[in-house]
């Protein structure tokens, strides 16, 4: 351990200030903090709670039902980030739909789905576009590429989300946020500065041991002052202006819309949908999709977990009926989900 890391550790273990609830917004932070054993360093008066920053976890049940409708009713080939395949819909997951004949292919990038459309002109390829500001540019690049090339067999089923209005919905859930570094790599730091002006504290954190130790130490040191603060602890990746070409691309291809978050309900203007100029690549419009409303399993408490209102182990199905092999809720499926982290690293 280097000298700076030791100093950060000392700040954390010797914290004697007011009780603090720190929300890890990003699911990858939750997993890394568990994996690195950082929770064990924290004094009793500091609590880490998981937030809604796993895109798979906040995707509502109805979205899975929509994807299954496209696959089974319209014969579309569904391409998706692998995490979504086992997320339960109202009656089945995409994995279950495969057993009924659905074609579902995991891809690493939306651009891989575009390539699949190029190579297979007889197939109708739909990419499931979920994710926050980090992922949205890649979906926009895919739509832009398909439009430029005149591909008629590629479309997006969108459930893209943006963080600023979610922070407003989470007001009062935590004393400080560990902001998701890769969202800010796109958006820049102005969102966090604005939140500070509204009295919300937080730091932008990276993902290595050194970066997470530093970020936690910065929160605890600033918490002693008892006034709102913001520090960018990930400057090697996050620049104040973010990524302007990515911001311009999103602005060109998509526009804000109301959207449903699992557990948080509909948050006004917290989603992104394709603009009318890209209607040919919007699967809902292309296939005249009817309104499909999902029904979540009432036993699952993912919604409360995502708001920091309860821990995964407070849910009665956690670790019993709901396991990574047989997930009931999305938070147990995704590698970034809080329930999966608690199950894998402890907390039962």
């Amino acid at each position, binding site marked *: 351990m280097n000298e*700076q890391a030791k100093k950060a550790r000392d700040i954390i273990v010797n914290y004697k200030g007011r009780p603090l609830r720190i929300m890890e917004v990003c699911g990858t932070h939750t997993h890394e903090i568990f994996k690195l054993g950082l929770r064990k360093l924290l004094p009793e008066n500091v609590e880490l709670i998981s937030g809604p920053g796993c895109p798979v976890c906040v995707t509502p049940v109805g979205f899975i039902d929509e994807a299954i409708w496209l696959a089974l009713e319209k014969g579309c080939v569904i391409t998706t980030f692998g995490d979504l395949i086992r997320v339960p819909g109202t009656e089945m997951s995409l994995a279950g739909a495969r057993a009924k004949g659905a074609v579902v292919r995991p891809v690493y990038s939306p651009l891989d789905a575009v390539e699949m459309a190029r190579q297979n002109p007889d197939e109708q390829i739909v990419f499931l576009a979920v994710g926050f500001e980090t992922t949205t540019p890649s979906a926009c690049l895919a739509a832009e590429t398909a439009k430029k090339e005149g591909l008629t067999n590629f479309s997006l089923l969108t459930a893209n989300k943006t963080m600023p209005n979610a922070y407003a919905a989470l007001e009062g859930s935590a004393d400080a946020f560990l902001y998701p570094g*890769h969202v800010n790599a796109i958006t820049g730091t102005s969102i966090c500065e604005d939140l500070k002006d509204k009295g919300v504290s937080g730091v932008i954190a990276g993902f290595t041991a050194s970066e997470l130790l530093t970020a936690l130490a910065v929160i605890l040191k600033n918490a002693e002052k008892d006034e709102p603060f913001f520090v960018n602890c990930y400057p090697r990746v996050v620049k104040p202006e973010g990524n302007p070409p*990515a911001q311009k691309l999103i602005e060109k291809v998509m526009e804000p819309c109301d959207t449903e978050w699992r557990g948080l309900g509909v948050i006004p203007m917290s989603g992104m949908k394709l603009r009318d100029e890209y209607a040919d690549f919007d699967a809902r419009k292309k296939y005249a999709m009817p309104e499909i409303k999902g029904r979540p399993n009432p036993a699952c408490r993912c919604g409360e977990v995502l708001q920091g209102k309860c821990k995964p182990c407070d849910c009665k199905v956690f670790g019993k009926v709901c396991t990574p092999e047989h997930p009931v809720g999305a938070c147990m499926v995704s590698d970034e989900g809080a329930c999966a982290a608690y199950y894998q690293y402890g907390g039962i």
Partner: protein
Amino acid sequence: MCVGLSAKVVNVKDGTALIDANGAKREVSADLLEDLEPGDYVMVHAGVAIAKITESDEEEANDVMEGLL
């Protein structure tokens, strides 16, 4: 899904960058970064390079901690 991959740029051509992440090579989109050159380090997300980065997180931690103490 949100896991970023830090990688070194090997070459750049027509909006596509060949990257090297600890020996694993892959082509990713370089459309969202201006003036990308071989030798640069980037953060890659879902097949797209989203940010130029510096290689070392230790140097970064030193700077942040110095500002704190």
